[in-house]
Structures are given as structure tokens and as C-alpha cells.
């Protein structure tokens, strides 16, 4: 018995409709098979994987064949399913396009029709390389050689794992919030119990494989089968199977993510998620960037990627589907997307971008490296969070005032046995030497949570973040702690090292920690080894209970550092690695800010020093809050040090206190965010004219490139931090009507707070270009006016209106066309508009022409 149908779903028979069909077929004992007449592929209609593998696309003609005792009933049930259930099963499940709308793709790339896959920026930077996927299901060499035991035993393990994984998905399904989420889980559930999958597993075991080997080989079989489909949806199911198999392996207890992946060329690593160990195992010489599909932005791997300075995006959905392995791509982890095809205009855009970033860096390092002080003269230390001696060096090169957090666990991870005292002493003393007298806070190892080391044999835990980690394991691993403390104490001879304990919950733990330090000192003294006797001891504040014992803790310790990542997740009881609840984890929530404010006040009342080393310090928007809190130090990734040092002099400490009080009085995190975004752009008035905004001899070829080049000039000299907003403001004005003036002139302009100062930017082209399609005349002189909204309405407006009026004047225009150097242009404009020339520009005016070839 059979019936024919044509596939009614525009995305084909992907996992969800396939699971509905298989579910129906499985109610009967009759055998059911599906034949796709387009490609001749036949699949078991009782198996989701079988149906998916038939690669049924929109309007493919198919035949469903049924044979068996209840064949009639099965046939009519399947017919009903195809006619009635399938056509509507995708309705309302379309992915919301919101995540793609806020992508900040520059116009130059848009006009080049470059495909960009968006993601959340974890670690900034731009990189180019070939796509490689990190497979989650791999067996270590050890497991490969591990012989299978009795097949019955292995089969039971696999079956139990399948049941456990299905149960887990079923649990999640109960709490699925969105229809899309539920549909995905439903499909996962179907795949995990799929008869073909289970059959294949059993078959592998009957051939003498172990449970883990069977899962890996079965997974690889189906991934290979589905991964070659031309249909995106079906390739996506390959990722689902990988996920299910990884969960099965985890259940069997054999998930080895540590198998090293060999890189041999500049590589962009694409993965669902990444464990810190997996990242550390990769060859840094070739690893250019990381793209994660998972949306959690504060996992330890993410922090590690940032500290290593590897450009990283997260939440880049469907990347594994959209990008084939081996494709050359660019990851723009400044703007938050992957450029999937590299055309010549894309390459040209990024060549220019690198040059812009280089010039911006060169200009900002010219600005000097003295200790940052607020406008009213309050100094604050800007230190760096590092994980290695190399990173510490980078931080000092960037002008860090110290190391606010040296995470020593990286010294312990990624190896078979604990590092020796000598080895640790070498690392710590190197950092101390490189500090040239600047303070270095070394945190003793914080192992546990998601940071595992094989040689400690820590138990598997249901809830590792609330479990056995940080100083909690010190009692059991005294030897390891004493070795590390001896190494730190010995290194303290080379520089002002301080010791900090992680994850402290109570005063008893502090007492034990101090006893350990005393013991380490005693043993060194006994052996006659040098160390600094008055080394300072402090602790991380990560556990809320510690915040209510500060009176006692201040008597025991010299300093404190706020570890806001963990503190915040424990405060809100929201796992920061779990994308489902990460929206609850909000460092700018007034509840959390009140908590921080209370902690800082109490520590200062106890006359102790307090810094902050969490991720929140790296977000420039939070700066006024941190200054308002009155922290003694802010510690950020090495790459952010310079930026903060430049930003601090713009703020007044009293004003920051008022801002903090405003934020403390807010009702929710969004209100705080609004308050901050309004504030952020209040920079100090800068002169209207600067020769840094005069570009002569531009090689741009399109209007998009011209505007980009002018925006880049703003960015290089620090007049905008948000090129995207500036670009959008300019294009919004262009959309209202041409800004072409005739006589070869165009005057794009906008009112936006994306600029930090009212500015006039002039660009002269080497070859004239078309500005607007409706005008035949070409443009070779572009005068861009940018006015801040937030400034008093009349500031500089007289100058702008007088410049506008002058542009009508033939002599004025002709003169502007002829001037040879940027300095002369600014001098001429200053004279004509009757405004004073910036002293720096008077000097620049003497220099030769600033024409650039690109």
C-alpha cells in the first residue's frame, strides 16, 4: 500500500516535520518507508534520521509505502499527517530576525553585498583565516585503544545513556519558553530516541565496540550522511546529532574534549561552545579567531580568549551551517560579524581598516602614559588582569599601573601533573621583574567550577559553580597550596608581589589561608631562603556571604578585589554560562550596584584598599559608576588599559558620585543603561577645526568609501568612538535628499552625539566620483559637518552657518580646491570663518602635504 505526495514545506522535511511523521508511523507495527522520487533516496519512515536523510525539499515528489497487518490504519494516519499536520507545522516558528537587525555592517560592505553572520563580541580584533570546526565528539587515544567489555554490559550502558539524555531533554522541554526552543528540543528528543540511531549503536556494539566507541562511530556516520546535504536545515541536523552524541558520551562518562586539534594554517575555529582546556590545547600560532554558536558571553573560555587577545564572537547562530570548512573568511570582532565571502572590495575595506586601526593606535600612544586622574585630580590605578608572564609584559607595555589579577590556574591547567615550585617561581619572579616596581597581585589557584585539572581527581559535580572550588579545596590539597605560596613568597624578592585568595566564603577560610602563608614562610625561613616578610595578603570578594563579614575581614587582610563575574552570578542565582538565564545576570542592575556600593564603603571604613577585576570594568559605559564607587583600582584586560586611562580625565569624581547615586535610585538595569548612555558622550569641548580631519588626495572610489574614510579620520583622532552611529546619522541625512552642492562639492552633514566634538572634516579626491545617481556632475571635494545634539544649541552654529554661506561663494570654493596642505586648509578656514586656530595646528600648518596613498 502506498500514497504519493509533494512536500508542502518550504524548508523541506527537516527534523520537526520528520519527527511528527515518524511519531505517527511508530504507532503501528506495519513497516513504513519513504521514497524521495527526485533523488531516489529511501528512508525508514519510523526514523527521524531516515526521513531527514532522504533529503526531501520543497515540492519534492515522494511515496510513502506501508506493509503489515495494521497497514491500512497506518496509511490513513500517515496520509492525515501529511495532508493536515505537516503544512502548518512550521507556522510561527520562523526565527526572529531581531538578532540580525542590530548588526553594524558598514555601508561599504553592504554595497559590496557581503554576507555577514552576526555574533556578540567577546574579544575584540579582526582576523582572517580558513574555517575549521571543532568536533565535540572525539575519542582520546586512550579510549580508542580501550577494549570493550561484555557486549551486554556495553549495550546496557548505551541504552541507559539514551534514556538519561532523553529524560534530560524532556525536562528542558517542560520549561521551554519559546515555541522555537520547544520545537528544537522536540526534534532533539526524537533524534535521541530514533530507531535508526539506536539500531546503529547496537550494531556497533555487537561488532565488539565499547559504548563510547559506538557513540562516536554512530555519530560520525550520521554527521557524514547529513553533513553532505545541500539543504541548510539538514546540515543543521548534523550539528544536532553531534550535540546528542556529545551528551551521550558525557552520560557514559567518556566525553574527552581534550583531544588536540592540529592546526596547520591561519584558522578561524567554529564551535558550538568551547572548554578552557580545548582552547589552551590549540596551536596559538595558527588560531586567528574563534566563532561560537552558543550565546553565553561570560564563560571561562570567553574570558580566556579575551585575555589571550584572540578575536572571538559568540551567539553566531548557524555558522556551522552557513560556512563550509576550509572557506577563507574574515572575523570582524570589533563590529560583531563574520564576513563569509572575501570579494576584492571586502579585502580593500579591511586593508584600509587595518591602516585606520594602526594610525589610531599610534596616535593614542603618542598621548603619553602618566597615571590617570579625574578632572578634579583624583588618581585611580588602572591595572591589568593576566594569565601569563607574556600577557603581563603586554599589560605593562600598554601602560598598566600594575597587575590587578594574575590568574595562576592557567599555570596549573593544560598539563598532566602539578607545576613544580621552581617552575612557578620562574614565572612569578619574571612577572615581578617586568613590573619594574609596580604592584602585582597573584591569586592562588582557583580550580574547580569549569576549570578542571586531571591530577587533582576532583569529583564530578551536579553544580560545580556552587561546589568544590577555589579556597574550598585548599584543605585537601595543602601540599599544592604550600608549593605555590613558597614560589610566590620567593618571587616577592624581585618585586612588590601581593597574595590573593579566591572564592572565600568565611573568616575561617581566611584564617586557614593566613596560616598556610605563615607555614610557607616558616619553611622558607628554616631553609634560609629569601622572601619578602611583609607581603600583603588579600582576598577576592566573589561570594555574597563574605560581603557581610567585612568588619572582621578588614582586620585580617590588607586588601580586597571585587570579582564581579562570580559575585554577580551568586548574587542573582543565575549561571552566567547559561544563555537561558544570562539576562538575569546584570552587573548594572541597581540591586547589584547597591551591593557593590555597600561593600566598597565598608572596606574603606575598615581603612583597607579595594579594587575591581571583573568583566564589568572593561565596559567603558560603566566607568562613571566605578569612579563613583570610589574604588582604589580597576583591573581590566591588557588591551583595555590605554582606553580607560584616556577616558578617566574626562570625568569629575563628584559628578561620578552623583551619577552613581542616580543609578542606585533606578528601578531596573535598563533604567541604569539609559542613564549611562545619555552621559557617556559628554566630552570636553575640542576645537572645531583640526588638520587631522583634512584628507587630501583620497583614493576612494565610491560615496560609501568616501564617507567611511571621513568617519575613520574622526575615529583615528578620537572624535568618535561609535563609527557605526556616525555613519548611520550621515546616511539618514543622505536618504532625505542629495547633499550634492554642484561645482564638484558635496556637503554630507548630521547632528549626532556619536561625535565627541563638533567638527568640520574636509576630503579632496584624487579622481572625482558620482555622489548621487540622479546627478550627472561628479564630486571631488567633500565637506562634512558633524554637530553634537547634546551641546548647547548655539555652540559653533554661527560658524557652521557662516561656512554654509561661504560655500555658495565661487572664490571660496575655488580656493579650497587649490590648497596644497592640510595645515593650510585649516589655516584658511580658520581665517575665513574667524575662529582661532588650535596651537597644535599652527605647528602642523608648517609641515608638508598630508596626502596619503591607500
Amino acid at each position, binding site marked *: 500500500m502506498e500514497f504519493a505526495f509533494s512536500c508542502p514545506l518550504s524548508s523541506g522535511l527537516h527534523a520537526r516535520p520528520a519527527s511528527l511523521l515518524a511519531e505517527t508511523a511508530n504507532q503501528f507495527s506495519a513497516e513504513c518507508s519513504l521514497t524521495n522520487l527526485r533523488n531516489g533516496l529511501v528512508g525508514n519512515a519510523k526514523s527521524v534520521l531516515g526521513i531527514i536523510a532522504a533529503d526531501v525539499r520543497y515540492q519534492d515528489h515522494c511515496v510513502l509505502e506501508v506493509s503489515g497487518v495494521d497497514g491500512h490504519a497506518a496509511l490513513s494516519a500517515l496520509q492525515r499527517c501529511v495532508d493536515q499536520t505537516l503544512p502548518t507545522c512550521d507556522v510561527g516558528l520562523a526565527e526572529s530576525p531581531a538578532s540580525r537587525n542590530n548588526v553594524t555592517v558598514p555601508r561599504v560592505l553592504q554595497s559590496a553585498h557581503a554576507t555577514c553572520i552576526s555574533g556578540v563580541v567577546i574579544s575584540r580584533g579582526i582576523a582572517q583565516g580558513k574555517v575549521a570546526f571543532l568536533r565535540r565528539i572525539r575519542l582520546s587515544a586512550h579510549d580508542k585503544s580501550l577494549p570493550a567489555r561484555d557486549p551486554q554490559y556495553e549495550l546496557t550502558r548505551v541504552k541507559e545513556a539514551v534514556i538519561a539524555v532523553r529524560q534530560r531533554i524532556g525536562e528542558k522541554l517542560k520549561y521551554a519558553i519559546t515555541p522555537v526552543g520547544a520545537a528544537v528540543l522536540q526534534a532533539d528528543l526524537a533524534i535521541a530516541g530514533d530507531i535508526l540511531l539506536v539500531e546503529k549503536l547496537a550494531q556497533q556494539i555487537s561488532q565488539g565496540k565499547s559504548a563510547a566507541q559506538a557513540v562516536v562511530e554512530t555519530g560520525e556516520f550520521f554527521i557524514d550522511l547529513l553533513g553532505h546535504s545541500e539543504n541548510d536545515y539538514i546540515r543543521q541536523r548534523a550539528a544536532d546529532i553531534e550535540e546528542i552524541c556529545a551528551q551521550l558520551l558525557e552520560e557514559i562518562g567518556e566525553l574527552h574534549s581534550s583531544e588536540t586539534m592540529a592546526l596547520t594554517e591561519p584558522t578561524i575555529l567554529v564551535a558550538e561552545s568551547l572548554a578552557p582546556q580545548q582552547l589552551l590545547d590549540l596551536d596559538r600560532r595558527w588560531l586567528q579567531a574563534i566563532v561560537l554558536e552558543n550565546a553565553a558571553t561570560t564563560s571561562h573560555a570567553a574570558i580566556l580568549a579575551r585575555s589571550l587577545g584572540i578575536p572571538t564572537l559568540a551567539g553566531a547562530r548557524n555558522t556551522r551551517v552557513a560556512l563550509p570548512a576550509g572557506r577563507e573568511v574574515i572575523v570582524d570582532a570589533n563590529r560583531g560579524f563574520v564576513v563569509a565571502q572575501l570579494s576584492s572590495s571586502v579585502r580593500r575595506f579591511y586593508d584600509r581598516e587595518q591602516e585606520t586601526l594602526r594610525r589610531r593606535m599610534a596616535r593614542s600612544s603618542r598621548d603619553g602614559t602618566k597615571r590617570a586622574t579625574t578632572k578634579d585630580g583624583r588618581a585611580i590605578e588602572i591595572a591589568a588582569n593576566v594569565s601569563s608572564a607574556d600577557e603581563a609584559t603586554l599589560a605593562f607595555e600598554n601602560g598598566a599601573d600594575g597587575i590587578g589579577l594574575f590568574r595562576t590556574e592557567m599555570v596549573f591547567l593544560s598539563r598532566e601533573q602539578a607545576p613544580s615550585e621552581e617552575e612557578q617561581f620562574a614565572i612569578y619572579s619574571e612577572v615581578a621583574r617586568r613590573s619594574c616596581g609596580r604592584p602585582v597581585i597573584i591569586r592562588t589557584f582557583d580550580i574547580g567550577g569549569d576549570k578542571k585539572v586531571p591530577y587533582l581527581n576532583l569529583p564530578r559535580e551536579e553544580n560545580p559553580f556552587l561546589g568544590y572550588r577555589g579556597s574550598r579545596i585548599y584543605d585537601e590539597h595543602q601540599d599544592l597550596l604550600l608549593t605555590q605560596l613558597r614560589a610566590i613568597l620567593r618571587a616577592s624578592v624581585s618585586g612588590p608581589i601581593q597574595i590573593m585568595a579566591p572564592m572565600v566564603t568565611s573568616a575561617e577560610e581566611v584564617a586557614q589561608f593566613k596560616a598556610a602563608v605563615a607555614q610557607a614562610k616558616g619553611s622558607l625561613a628554616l631553609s634560609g631562603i629569601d622572601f619578602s616578610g611583609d607581603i600583603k595578603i588579600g582576598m577576592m570578594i566573589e561570594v555574597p556571604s563574605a560581603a557581610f563579614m567585612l568588619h572582621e575581614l578588614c582586620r585580617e587582610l590588607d586588601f580586597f578585589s571585587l570579582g564581579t563575574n562570580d559575585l554577580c552570578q551568586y548574587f542573582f542565582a543565575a549561571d552566567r554560562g547559561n544563555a537561558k538565564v544570562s539576562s538575569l545576570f546584570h552587573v548594572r542592575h541597581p540591586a547589584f550596584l547597591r551591593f557593590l556600593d555597600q561593600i566598597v564603603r565598608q572596606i574603606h571604613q575598615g581603612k583597607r584598599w579595594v579594587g575591581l577585576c571583573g568583566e564589568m570594568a572593561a565596559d567603558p559605559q560603566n566607568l562613571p559608576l566605578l569612579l563613583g564607587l570610589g574604588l582604589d583600582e580597576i583591573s581590566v584586560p591588557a588591551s583595555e588599559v590605554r582606553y580607560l586611562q584616556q577616558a578617566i580625565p574626562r570625568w569629575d569624581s563628584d559628578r561620578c558620585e552623583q551619577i552613581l547615586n542616580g543609578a542606585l535610585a533606578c528601578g531596573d538595569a535598563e533604567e541604569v543603561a539609559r542613564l549611562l548612555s545619555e552621559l557617556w558622550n559628554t566630552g570636553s569641548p575640542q576645537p572645531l577645526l583640526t588638520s587631522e580631519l583634512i584628507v587630501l588626495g583620497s583614493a576612494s572610489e565610491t560615496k560609501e568609501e568616501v564617507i567611511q574614510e571621513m568617519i575613520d579620520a574622526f575615529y583615528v583622532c578620537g572624535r568618535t568612538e561609535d563609527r557605526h552611529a556616525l555613519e548611520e546619522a550621515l546616511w539618514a541625512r543622505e536618504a532625505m535628499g542629495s547633499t550634492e552642492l554642484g561645482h564638484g562639492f558635496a556637503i554630507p*552633514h*548630521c547632528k549626532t552625539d556619536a561625535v565627541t566634538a563638533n567638527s568640520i572634516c574636509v576630503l579632496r579626491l584624487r579622481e572625482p566620483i558620482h555622489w548621487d545617481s540622479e546627478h550627472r556632475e561628479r564630486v571631488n571635494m567633500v565637506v562634512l559637518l558633524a554637530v553634537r545634539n547634546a551641546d548647547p544649541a548655539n555652540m559653533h*552654529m554661527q560658524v*557652521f*552657518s557662516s561656512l*554654509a*554661506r561661504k*560655500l555658495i*561663494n565661487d572664490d571660496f570654493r575655488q580656493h579650497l580646491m587649490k590648497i596644497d596642505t592640510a595645515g593650510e586648509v585649516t589655516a584658511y578656514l580658520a581665517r575665513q570663518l574667524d575662529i582661532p586656530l588650535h596651537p597644535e595646528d599652527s605647528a602642523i600648518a608648517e609641515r608638508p602635504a598630508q596626502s596619503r596613498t591607500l
Partner: protein
Amino acid sequence: MKIVAITACPTGIAHTYMAAARLEKVAKNFGHEIKVETQGAMGIENKLTEADIRQAQIAIFAVDIEVEGRDRFNGVKVIQVPLQEALKNPENIFSKIQR
């Protein structure tokens, strides 16, 4: 001929003033007397008085947005053109007036 005019554009930082300058210049060439009020980012400047409007034979609105205080011109003949017109072909406007 006595003429009054208003220029206004959406951002009010460039075209408003350029159009005003163009109208002033070309009117002079045509031998007219003109006063141009600008409605830009600085608000209303060179404001037309009641007497200016009463004495004018015609009013030109070269605007891309709504004019502020349109009711001041009740009973006066008004020509309204897109601002670009005043910028690119102000001569056209004045020849139209003469016809």
C-alpha cells in the same frame, strides 16, 4: 520688488543657510529687495517682522519641512519650492515671479 523668504531644512545646519545666501545673492542680481528668515538649528534668525511681511509683494518658502509661523503670511502671495530648488536654480524662482 520687495520679497520676503524663509529657508528651512531637516537638519538645519547647512542647506538652510546656503539657500538663504543663494536667494539673497540672486535676488540682488534681479534687482529685487529681499529679506530671508532662516529656520535652522539655531532657531529662527533674521526674523521677518509684521512690517516686512506687510510691505512684501511676494513670499518665497524654500523649505523641506513645515514652516514655523505660517499664519503670519495670511493674505500674502506665497510660492513654496523644495529647498534644493533655491540652491540649484534660484534664477527659475525669480523668473517665475516676474511672469
